[in-house]
């Protein structure tokens, strides 16, 4: 336990160090390039850094509060993400109770099951029970207009925002021999690798980006940014093997999987935004858009990371 604490402290000190350096660079850039707030890129960078501080501090508080804190934090994230998602989908009056059930029944139950460590029901509650119950509730009103579209969109909202997102705190329930009491560091590993991968793709893309990778989906994503971001985030993940139950090579391979899933998750979520005709999912976080804009890559990598770890390392 003390080992976990000291590793956590080292990690926190490292993260704070990175954020302080980022803040200083942001401040210098602002003084040089945007003294009166005229350079949009610099202003956006500083808004993002500020938001990063808030996010790191929130996650830090949740970690200190322990399992219940992490569950409440991610439960809130699921709720807010679901709100952003459902705001953009096709719903009709007839879906009112199905939507109310999604927010006020499905979300709490999913996180309660995590709290109770009921893996069996946790892993099928949304794909099986919610999947069947949502259309049943909707169909009772007898409105068949675009029925398949409506129920499919609600189900997808639940899968992405609740089922997939809840796999981050689900890492706490894994029983890994020799890693007892340290599971919170698995969450830290996942979140750090995913978020750094996003940031590094952005940085590499800004510096060397020439070839657009998917111009119709996301004009800012480039091949150079993608390759540079994936390689550097994978290397950082490898370097963080000491906070995980993995050997360095294993940590690197998992980091590679996480960054790839994160990248393609971002693309999928961009495609949905294009389809709905919006630029951001919401406006919760200054400089980042909505919560889903920040969570999209975590959401796609969390279930895969969870299951790989569970299959090979957990009891």
């Amino acid at each position, binding site marked *: 336990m003390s080992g976990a604490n000291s590793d956590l402290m080292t990690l926190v000190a490292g993260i704070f160090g990175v954020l302080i350096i980022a803040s200083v660079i942001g401040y210098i850039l602002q003084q040089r390039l945007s003294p009166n707030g005229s350079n949009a890129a610099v202003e956006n960078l500083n808004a993002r850094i500020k938001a990063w501080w808030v996010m790191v501090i929130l996650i830090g508080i949740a970690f200190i509060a322990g399992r219940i804190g992490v569950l409440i934090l991610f439960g809130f994230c699921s709720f807010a993400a679901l709100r952003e998602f459902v*705001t953009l*989908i096709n719903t009709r009056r007839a879906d009112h109770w199905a939507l*109310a059930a999604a927010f006020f029944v499905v979300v709490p139950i999913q996180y309660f099951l995590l709290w109770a460590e009921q893996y069996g029901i946790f892993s099928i509650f949304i794909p099986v029970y919610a999947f069947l119950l949502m259309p049943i509730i909707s169909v009772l009103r007898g409105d068949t207009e675009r029925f398949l579209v409506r129920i499919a969109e609600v189900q997808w909202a639940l899968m992405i925002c609740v089922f997939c997102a809840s796999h981050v705190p689900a890492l706490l329930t894994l029983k890994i021999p020799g890693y007892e009491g340290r599971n919170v560091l698995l969450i830290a590993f996942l979140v750090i690798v995913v978020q750094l991968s996003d940031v590094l793709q952005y940085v590499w893309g800004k510096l060397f980006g020439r070839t657009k990778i998917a111009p119709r989906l996301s004009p800012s994503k480039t091949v150079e940014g993608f390759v540079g971001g994936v390689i550097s985030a994978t290397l950082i993940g490898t370097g963080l093997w000491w906070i995980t139950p993995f050997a360095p090579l294993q940590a690197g391979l998992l980091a590679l999987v996480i960054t790839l899933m994160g990248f393609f998750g971002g693309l999928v979520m961009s495609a949905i935004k294009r389809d709905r005709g919006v630029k951001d999912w919401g406006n919760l976080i200054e400089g980042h858009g909505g919560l889903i804009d920040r969570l999209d890559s975590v959401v796609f990598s969390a279930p895969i990371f969870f299951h790989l770890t569970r299959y090979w390392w957990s009891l």
Partner: protein
Amino acid sequence: MKALPTKVAATVIVLFARAVTAVRAVWPEDGLPSRPCVYYANHSSHGDFVLVWTVLPPRLRHRARPVAGAEYWLKSWLNRFIGRDVFNAVLIARDRDKRTEDPVTQMASAIDAGSSLILFPEGTRNQSDARLLPFKSGIFHLAVARPDVDLVPVWISNLNRVMPKGEIVPIPLICTVSFGSALQIAPGEDKDVFLERMQAALLALSPNIAGGGE
């Protein structure tokens, strides 16, 4: 000076509105008028004026008074407390026969006293598939009576999905309140032309996004 219970109630209502709708305001480029004005909005839910009131900056919010039907807001003590005490609504009688005061006079004197108004010119909640019901003529008569007053179009989106008529559980969806640039009545402008112009300015604010295919 307002009594403490009304202040507490106002704060609770604003916090609740923000918690459920995560409401976001979109301001016009030239900003909101700083003198008394009329915010006129589309109307689909009982919560409409609460949302407009919530997003207004505090210094403008405190002098914004919703214009509302007296029958509904005097019905019970709770309605009276919220409508009359908390929001200081300008209560007008909808039924012509029971009127003791002329609604236009009531609104004009509220403006003269330094208040702004939150007005729903459709006159009733829009339950139809149309984006906007035809405007009643009250806003025209008010504009004739006070030709200098700024008329600010306000489009409230999504609140009808949060709480459709007849439902009791709100769905937490993100609502947006978009304010347009202030308009004024032109000298000698015809009633139909004026109302048409007001409706067009309001509709121009409605976002053209998918979702809410109601």
